[in-house]
């Protein structure tokens, strides 16, 4: 079974197709692994074994009827931000600790329709606000590389589920790096698609103009297989893009000799840990050895990305989170004097410190007298960041750099210093500001033996290209197959 847990989706698909293993057996193996590891890693908030096994049985029956699709019978772990019918959907918050969704998110429906198994719901930073998965009401997620370290966030539970080999693949959401940064810090792969490719219907909103669901898995080829299920037009999301269905695995072996890799000087400056820089530069050299050309490019507004993001995302969040008022569902304070007191106590009790901080910031920047100076100004700068990318993509096909300036840090080390925490996102924030696709794949280890992520960012709709480039790299490396030291198979 241990080899199954380390297998890629393509390998699992072949095993299932050949009936050398059933979905029930595979699901049971994952559940056993979760039972063994989750107490220590805290990657899952909800695991419904009965439901998972029922899904698996249905998948096996479907396969028996000869109706299996690509991911039929594959267990998938979902970030607890996706509404799941009949199941707790908490968003890592006390506010929703009692919320059983009456409907399925589009992403959940898509996996359900292809016969995937819903393995469980993953822990995360509260309402996806964080870069360390420490702000969850359900306690911090721990890194399988070192339980004293954070796995990154906000999709930390999903990344750890994959890195700890508890789930073959997982879903996450990325607003300012919440898929890519935890993928990098835990040594797995994560893709943030072009804004609008994956429906946000049923995804509990953090910052609507940034939020994008995407896959987390062990390899780029796996990400492509997951994207084939997740992406697609959905009329229930007005920002969903109406495009023909595409096969994200169609270009997994591109010619690297014509590739122009843009290297922004802003991504290789000060503040990057030497171990991170070394691993990323080595990866770039490998591409050069295959004939790719490294092109210096400039993204001059990179340093504005973090402040711009931390104005706009909280602004949207302050409004998105207004619905959590204790009136219709979710937490409501037990004692209150009047309506205003009910709101105040409910929200004071239901939200954690980081969520409150962002609601306050967002409320402030939208307030009368500050709107122009903060919100409008940030919108203008957002366009400048997008323009930087457009100019850079005139000269290169993809932009490469570190996903995160540093490898995983100690739990508790940055919680009291939000600005330090926010600066961690400096390389992941620009892509969502411009709505661009970006992925992170493992490209080595630093001196402490911690995984380093290589980020590739491309023009809109270049997912298949990015995945192909990453796949070529993974054909020649095994960083992505390394099992974390604390969770051996």
């Amino acid at each position, binding site marked *: 079974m241990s080899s199954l847990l380390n297998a890629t989706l393509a390998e699992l698909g072949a095993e299932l197709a050949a009936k050398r293993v059933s979905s029930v057996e595979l699901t049971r193996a994952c559940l056993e692994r979760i039972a063994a590891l989750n107490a220590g890693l805290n990657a899952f908030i909800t695991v419904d074994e009965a439901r998972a096994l029922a899904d698996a049985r249905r998948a096996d029956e479907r396969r028996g009827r000869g109706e299996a699709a690509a991911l039929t019978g594959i267990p998938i772990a979902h970030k607890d931000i*996706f*509404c799941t019918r009949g199941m707790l*959907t908490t*968003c890592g918050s006390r506010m*929703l600790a009692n*919320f059983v*969704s*009456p*409907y399925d*998110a589009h992403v959940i429906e898509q996996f359900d329709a292809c016969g995937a198994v819903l393995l469980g719901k993953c822990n995360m930073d509260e309402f996806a606000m964080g870069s360390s998965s420490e702000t969850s009401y359900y306690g911090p997620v721990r890194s399988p590389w070192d339980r004293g370290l954070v796995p990154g966030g906000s999709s930390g539970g999903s990344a750890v589920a994959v890195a700890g080999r508890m789930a073959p693949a997982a879903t996450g959401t990325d607003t300012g790096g919440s898929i890519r940064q935890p993928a990098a810090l835990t040594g797995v792969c994560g893709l943030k698609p072009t804004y609008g490719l994956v429906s*946000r*219907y*049923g*995804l*509990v*909103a953090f*910052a*609507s*103009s940034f939020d994008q669901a995407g896959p987390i898995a062990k390899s780029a080829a796996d990400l492509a297989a997951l994207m084939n299920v997740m992406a697609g037009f959905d*009329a*229930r*999301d*007005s*920002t969903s893009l109406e495009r023909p269905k595409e096969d994200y695995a169609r270009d997994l072996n591109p010619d690297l000799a014509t590739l122009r890799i843009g290297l922004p000087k802003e991504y290789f400056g000060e503040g990057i840990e030497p171990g991170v820089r070394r691993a990323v530069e080595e990866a770039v050299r490998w591409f050069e050895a295959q004939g790719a050309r490294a092109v210096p490019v400039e993204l001059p507004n990179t340093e504005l990305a973090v402040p711009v993001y931390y104005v706009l995302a909280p*602004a*949207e969040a*302050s*409004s998105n*989170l*207004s*619905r*959590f*008022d204790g*009136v*219709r*569902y979710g937490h409501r304070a037990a004692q209150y004097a009047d*309506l205003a007191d009910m*709101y105040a106590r409910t929200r004071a009790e239901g939200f954690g410190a980081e969520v409150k901080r962002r609601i306050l910031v967002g*409320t402030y920047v*939208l*307030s*009368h007298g500050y*709107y122009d100076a903060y*919100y409008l100004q940030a919108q203008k700068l957002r366009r400048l960041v997008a323009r930087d990318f457009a100019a850079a993509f005139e000269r290169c096909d993809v932009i490469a750099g570190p996903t995160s300036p540093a490898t995983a840090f100690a739990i508790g080390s940055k919680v009291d210093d939000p600005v330090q925490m926010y600066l961690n996102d400096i390389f992941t924030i620009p892509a969502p500001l411009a709505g661009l696709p970006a992925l992170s794949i493992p490209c080595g280890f630093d001196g402490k033996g911690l995984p380093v992520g290589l980020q590739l960012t491309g023009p809109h709709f270049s997912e298949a290209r990015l995945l192909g480039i990453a796949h070529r790299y993974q054909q020649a490396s095994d960083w992505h197959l390394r099992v974390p030291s604390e969770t051996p198979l």
Partner: protein
Amino acid sequence: MSRSGWEVVVGLETHTQLRTRSKVFSGASTAFGAAPNTQACAVDIALPGTLPVLNRAAVEHAIRFGLAVDAAINRRSVFARKNYFYPDLPKGYQISQYELPIVQGGELRIALEAGEKRVRLTRAHLEEDAGKSLHEDFHGMTGIDLNRAGTPLLEIVSEPDLRSAAEAVAYARALHALVVWIGICDGNMQEGSFRCDANVSVRRAGDARLGTRCEIKNLNSFRFLERAIEFEARRQIELLEEGGAVAQETRLYDPERDETRPMRTKEEAHDYRYFPDPDLMPLVVGEELIERLRADMPELPEARRKRFEREYALSQYESSLLTQSRAWADFFEALIKQLGGLQKLAASWMLGELSAALNRGGIDIEASPIDAERLAGLLKRVHDNTISGRAAKDVFEAMWNDRLEADAVIDARGLQQISDAGAIEKLVDEVLAANRRQVEDYRSGKERAFNALVGQVMKASRGKASPAQVNAVLRRRLARNE
């Protein structure tokens, strides 16, 4: 109402509920009167993860309105979030249009005793309605009904061009008639389909600057609108005359006590933190859509009234009554089509018998038991003198009550006029012979005696003789015997 030396200035914001089957951002039904919360879907109750999807029918209605008032239709408009907390506002924000509304400018012409007045419109924007808080039904608690949440509204904002409560009511009535006429609103004020907020201020006559205004919220009848503005203007004038100052505030009108009361002051006003809704793309309206809607626009009340005057030689009074609604105007034109003209006869019957009968029964003309075709059947018999005008009223009543055709009633009751000249002459001779005294009176110059003789002949004919014919024969006979 206005005291000498003071001018009242009013602008109205009117919330018009758009006639669509589903809500403006969800697929839930907009039908009125369902059990609480049975017409509120996941989007309406703002479950986590739900998203708004714009209802195209609501957009088309907004464009129709813009075309009807000659406004600019913005090719790109933007939905914004208006943020505030209230239990019947499920998302904690209302989706509305703020900086870029779909309809901008335009004007509404209203008929006043002093003549026509043009009221400028500022804008009209799409937004969603909130739910309802039910404070009375639950002891010590408040119930929330979200059936209305997400109902499409067009908020129509006028410039402060109105100068009295009466003008405000005339504007509101004209606006109400227009939105019903063009089919974008059912106009049902009891159900809240048309509600006004009035911005009221006063100033010394001749003063160019506007006074400080108060906004009176949620006036859902023309009478309340009038009373509220009258009260508010009087209150402000008295305050200023006593040397006080008007505080800018939002007020509520209490119909029971016929007064306005403060709701919140300017200082207590919300900071709504408007910003573009990132869940909705900017609303882009194409030329083709506008042109298609323009081509489908019905003739508007104003134009139709003027055409009626011109084409059918009706008085302004008649034509304005006949264009009080599209249904009235359609009825009239259907009627004269059946009659092949006779517009004066048609108008007088519609505004006379028909109108009175509808009023008595409290029935809309759409539901009239006598439709245009059947009324035409009756008027044809009046026109060709088959029946007298007197008999026609009886026939109308029978048609109304028993849903019969005019000819069937006339036949059954034998109401055909006697038009045979010999028969009438015989009746006249008999009456003259039997009433020597009246004949003498007539001859000595008492014209009234003639009318009595006509009455006698009519009575003898049991109403079937044509009064005109009786008149003529009588005159002839009386002249001959002289």
